[in-house]
């Protein structure tokens, strides 16, 4: 064929080979690529909202009752089905699911915070209002990080002892999202310094955000309240007292004084006394963790089959005039292994808020209270006691609000009153084991209400553990010990 025709054909076919440059970078439709999620102030707002939402899965539930189950407040009923059995008997090992889920939960929350704190400061804001918002979001992220590290330190390290904090081992500090990270454990002092650093940064952006009772977002009061809690554990008495009093003196969170108000606070999640509470509703925003071990209500028979029953001692710790007694406890009839038992006090502090029920019967859902004012009074009292200040005022503020006569004890008796009041007020809120630990007291399981309904024996209701027992401090989970060879396990695990 003609030469020119051949050339034309070659040219034509060559043109077929020009590849359209198409993209090979494809992004999913049901998720956002992380690299695309830190572009605007709205993105920062979404990350911030995400932190609040996920906290619903890391407070209450196993994050709250696990240590109470381990403490002297509770007995295991015959129907407990070995749920939370190992922590209750103190025979748990590093492969225990509670240890695994608590540790994994806190670090899972941490990854979002770390991701945010690394990338959010790079967001460009176009107005002062937006810049302020970004600063607030960053501060709130610091608050969350401080909160989670405090809880990690409380579980996995010894009580803060200023003398040995620089050498006692605590948890690994992770400040960046890094899939290759294999961090070693930091010391107790390093972890608490990190917490204080995060709190200081939290104050920067939240300094101007005033608190209000029942707030479901953070405020300066939330920062101060957490600071008070942290400093109490650090035995920084002046610091703890100053932070606690700063909130108390604002009078924004007066303590309730009547049984009706007390009931509304715990059953209906009223806003009273609450500095920071997580939002919940009865449809798509349910709390991720609930305290379901205390009742075991059977609607068909109207009887109860709880996993854990309060000891007689803790019930008796409350005077009959105490407005908390009728709310924290109720006398119920139980169905244990087919037999009915009457008049046993069960923990009703977490009955479930009817506004959050998703069906006819309780799902034990509550608006989770993260910080409440009553704790600050007790921190102020204890800190004052240890630093030669006025402990009676804050102590009696709580006592009189709750219907008790004021205390006028001094010395060791005053300390005991403070401790008892703290145990009463904060009962079943996850504080007891840490209090025993830092007061260097043994865990002696207290006398039970009724021996027929509980597991008995020296692994259960007569279990005693001396002060400083190894298992006051939890062991690092087996998974991390196996995969991260830079970790050292706690003694006794």
């Amino acid at each position: 064929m003609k030469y020119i025709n051949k050339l034309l054909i070659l040219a034509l076919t060559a043109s077929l080979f020009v590849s359209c440059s198409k993209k090979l970078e494809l992004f999913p439709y049901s998720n956002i690529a992380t690299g695309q999620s830190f572009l605007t102030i709205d993105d920062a707002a979404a990350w911030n909202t995400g932190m609040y939402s996920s906290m619903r899965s890391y407070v209450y539930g196993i994050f709250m009752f696990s240590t109470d189950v381990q403490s002297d407040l509770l007995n295991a009923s015959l129907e407990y089905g070995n749920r939370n059995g190992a922590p209750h008997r103190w025979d748990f090992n590093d492969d225990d699911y509670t240890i695994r889920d608590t540790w994994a939960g806190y670090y899972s929350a941490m990854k979002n915070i770390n991701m945010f704190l690394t990338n959010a400061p790079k967001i460009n804001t176009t107005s002062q209002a937006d810049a302020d918002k970004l600063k607030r979001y960053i501060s709130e992220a610091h608050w969350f990080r401080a909160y989670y590290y405090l809880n990690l330190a409380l579980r996995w390290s010894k009580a803060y002892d200023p003398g040995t904090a620089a050498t006692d081992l605590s948890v690994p500090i992770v400040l960046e999202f890094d899939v290759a990270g294999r961090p070693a454990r930091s010391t107790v002092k390093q972890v608490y310094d990190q917490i204080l650093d995060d709190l200081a940064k939290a104050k920067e952006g939240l300094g101007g955000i005033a608190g209000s009772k029942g707030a479901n977002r953070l405020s300066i009061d939330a920062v101060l309240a957490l600071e008070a809690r942290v400093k109490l554990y650090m035995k920084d008495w002046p610091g703890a007292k100053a932070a606690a009093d700063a909130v108390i003196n604002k009078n924004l969170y007066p303590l309730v004084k009547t049984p009706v108000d007390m009931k509304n606070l715990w059953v209906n999640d009223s806003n009273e006394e609450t500095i920071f509470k997580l939002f919940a509703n009865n449809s798509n925003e349910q709390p991720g963790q609930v305290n379901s071990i205390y009742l075991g209500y059977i609607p068909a028979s109207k009887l109860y089959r709880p996993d854990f029953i309060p000891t007689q001692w803790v019930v008796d710790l409350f005077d009959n005039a105490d407005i908390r007694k009728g709310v924290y406890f109720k006398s119920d009839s139980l169905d244990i292994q087919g037999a009915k038992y009457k008049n046993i006090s069960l923990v009703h502090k977490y009955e479930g808020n009817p506004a959050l029920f998703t069906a006819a019967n309780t799902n034990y859902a509550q608006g989770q209270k993260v910080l409440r004012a009553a704790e600050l009074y007790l921190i102020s009292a204890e800190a004052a006691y240890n630093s030669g200040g006025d402990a009676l005022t804050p102590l009696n503020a709580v006592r009189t609000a709750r219907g008790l006569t004021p205390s006028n004890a001094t010395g060791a008796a005053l300390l005991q009153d403070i401790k008892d009041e703290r145990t009463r007020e904060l009962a079943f809120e996850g504080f007891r084991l840490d209090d025993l630990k830092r007061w260097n007291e043994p865990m002696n399981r207290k006398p039970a209400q009724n021996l027929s309904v509980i597991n008995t024996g020296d692994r259960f209701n007569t279990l005693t553990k001396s002060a400083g027992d190894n298992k006051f401090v939890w062991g690092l989970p087996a998974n991390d010990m196996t995969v991260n060879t830079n970790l050292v396990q706690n003694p006794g695990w």
Partner: protein
Amino acid sequence: MLLAMFMAVSIILFAQSGVIKGKIVDEQGNPIPYASITIANTTTGVSSDENGEFSISAKINQMLVFSATGFQNKEVSASQNMRVTLARGSGVVEDEVVVVGYGSGRRLSSIVGTVDRISATKFKERPAASMVDGLQGQFPGLQVFTSSGEPSETSSFRLHGVGSLGASSTPLIILDGIQVGNGSLVSLSPQDIESYTLLKDASSTSIYGARAANGVLVITSKKGRFEMAPTITFGVQYGVSNPIGVKEKIYDKMMNAEELLDWQVKTGNKTQAQADAIRTTYKNANTNWYDVYYRKDAPYKQANLALSGGGKGSNYYISGTYYKEDGSAWRSWYDRFTFRSNINTIITKWLKFGATLSGGVDKRSTNPYGSNNTNRGLSPLRQPYFSPVDSTGKRYDFIPGVGAYHPQYLAEKVLSSGFNYQFNPNAYIEITPIKGLTLRTQGGYDAYIYRSSGVTLPSYLGSLKNGNASESFDQGVQRTFTHTAEYGFNLKDDHDFSLLAGYEWIDYKNNNFSASSAGQTDDRVILLGAGPNNRSVGQGKTEYAYESFFGRATYSFVKKYYFDASVRQDASSRFGANNKKAVFWSAGLMWAAKKEAFLQDVSWLDDLNIRFSYGTSGNSSIGDYQSQALVGLNAYNGGTGWVLSSAGNPNLSWEEQAKSLLNIQASVFRKVRMDLSIYNRDTKNQLVSVPQPYTVGFSAITQNVGSLNNKGIDVRFDVDVIKNKIAFFSPYITVAYNKNKITELFQGRDYWIIPNTGVAWVVGKPITFIYPLWKGVNSETGAPEWYLPETGEGFEVKTQKDPSKVTSTFSAAGLQQNTGIQRYAPWSGGFGWQSGWKGFYFNVDFSFVQGKYMINNDNYFFLNPNQFAGFNTKKEVTDYWQKPGDITKYPAWKYQFMQFDDRLIEDASFLRLKTLMFGYNLPSKLLNQTGFIKGASIYVTGRNLFTSTKYTGPDPEVDSNLGLGTNPNTKNYGFGINIQF
């Protein structure tokens, strides 16, 4: 003188490029009609007529290839009035021109890679919807499993063992040059397929790059032939199917009414009075629930009509097929209509064009009550003393006593079906601008729209006036565009070169959404809008893309020594940012040994080819966005929040395989053909979900770690025992052995247990079952006993069977040990024969798998009467311990009879008579009388007619670590006729 010379020259010149005429006959001198004569290395060809005569435009001495079904191919150089004799051969058509690994067709004998080709003619009358099912036992080294008896079931298959711990082991499937998914194959008709070619070694597969580590199955659809008179082929087939094995192995082994009542009284489940009351109330019913849950003789039918032919410049193949089958379980059926039009045109000497339009519509419904559902899967548990019909013989809707709905009632009230619209078009242009250079551009789609609808009628007594409806739409389109340039040239006659360069773009987009609602009250209005409650919507969308460059060079010296090398670079959207491009290469050698001088005279050796190749390929069947760190959504106080939902892995890449394979093909005594391959596959960078410390924030991330090795041998023998004018008998056997071994895991571990599967990966061993090891029943105490594992780290992967170290307390996690049983079967293969006598033909194919083990989860329910008190149980439980000294299979009544221990791991090896065909081709003398019928045959056919296995569950063929509530494979038999006009 000059005139004579001139005339001589002109005659020679004329003869140089003219029309060659000739005749093609068999060894007895009978003409072979419709044989194919092609010019070697081209697609130019003609067919012989009814008298075996042909004429073809060719030059003198040009090499012509003669082939016909049932005969061995032959190459003869063209001469005028040539007479060519073909010898009979087996059904395997040798040396066809095939397109393998891009570019234009090459003859099988010149392909350096090891490829196995089977003509689809032997599968054309099979009574099954799926084309892959018939391949079981046919290709040595290819294990095929059909895991249920649903008519619309997609078969699973793998070549040379399990190549991946975390990703798919399915080979790449190419249909007419375009990649198609395994799920699309059931929507295409096996009648339209010309041949299946399996590419087994690196030399043939490496050019497919990051998708080819598991081998490549090339499916070629039928095409017309040039210069072939139009032929219409019509066939119909009718038959029935019945489930295999489940009645004899399970239902018949459960207790009958008398036995169960006596047993229940004996074990204290009922008092004698209660048992008598049942006998009276239910009128001594004795039901074998098999008859209620499965239908006998479920019918199937298929019909196909094809038109094919061709002229000088074009050929065509057009077909329509219809297939309908009822499954033997209720609400199980499959209805398929396909259409295909394959056209090839030579537009000019240098421009060819072809287009295939292939599509189908199928509707399918499956029985959903498998697994541990008592509405079929666990229906053997139903008590035999209840009856499914009332005293008049009418079927109950709700069966009293049993307390469940009749399966036929459920099939009438709870409906679900899917409609699949399948579309597989492709087209190509081929240009040969200068001699030896072929430019080809090809594009095609594998597209489907799948609509599924489900409804629970409001008249269903289980939720009266509260029906529900759901609809979903799922669309997937995969596009493939390939451009290749191929240049072949020859130096000094002895040196043949061929170079290929190519570019390919593949992308896939999937879009789906669904909606459902509940609360419909009337059967007449059941649309989504009629349901006011539980309204819910969902949507998903995903895509991926690949861009590749590849090349191949082939060199052969005197057509005796061949060498080829290929290289391919794939870039994919699925790979992590740090690993976007993957490069694969291969090198292969072939020695056509028979052509050597020293073997030419060895008369008993007809052919000997030795091939060896080594190369790399990849497996990229990973999630579309798995390499990316992703953010998911949550809500707080009505606002939307973001949290990290997947860690991503910027280093995520394909699994890489290096495979070496040695292949020896020999044919001796003109009767025996052997094909032997020995291979070694090392796969590394396995996609595994690797545990991370929780401090990372994620408990596991998919990473490329670990390596696996597969070694093995495949062999195939075909023998022509009898081969003459009247009769032929050609048996064959294929056997494959595969040995797999984990060679490396991650984080320096020696073993890794996959949670909740009973399977572990142990370095240095094959993939193994780990389960508590049963010792027996203590004859003194009646307590069940399991061996105590060794203590310490790694106890789960060791084996301790010291009879003095036992326990009677069961713990699934605490007693796990290495059972020593491999998860995947090492041996597989098939055997059978093709035979015929005069017009009769009789073909049989068996397939077998040996060394397959499976957890019989059904037995956990059927052999556990104290765990599932009140339900039926197998008769064998009566052998239980009652007093000291008893030696029994089951422990004392106070102990659970069956636990998840190695009693449940059973040998699921099986032998099946896979295909049987017996038919008669009507003699041409008879047909000639009609004047227009060219060929006709009547036949009977069967599938899975016989099964031999030790497995006591319903179906040993399930491709899984456990079987539970399987809807078993069916045996089908039918009869049909084929007519050719």
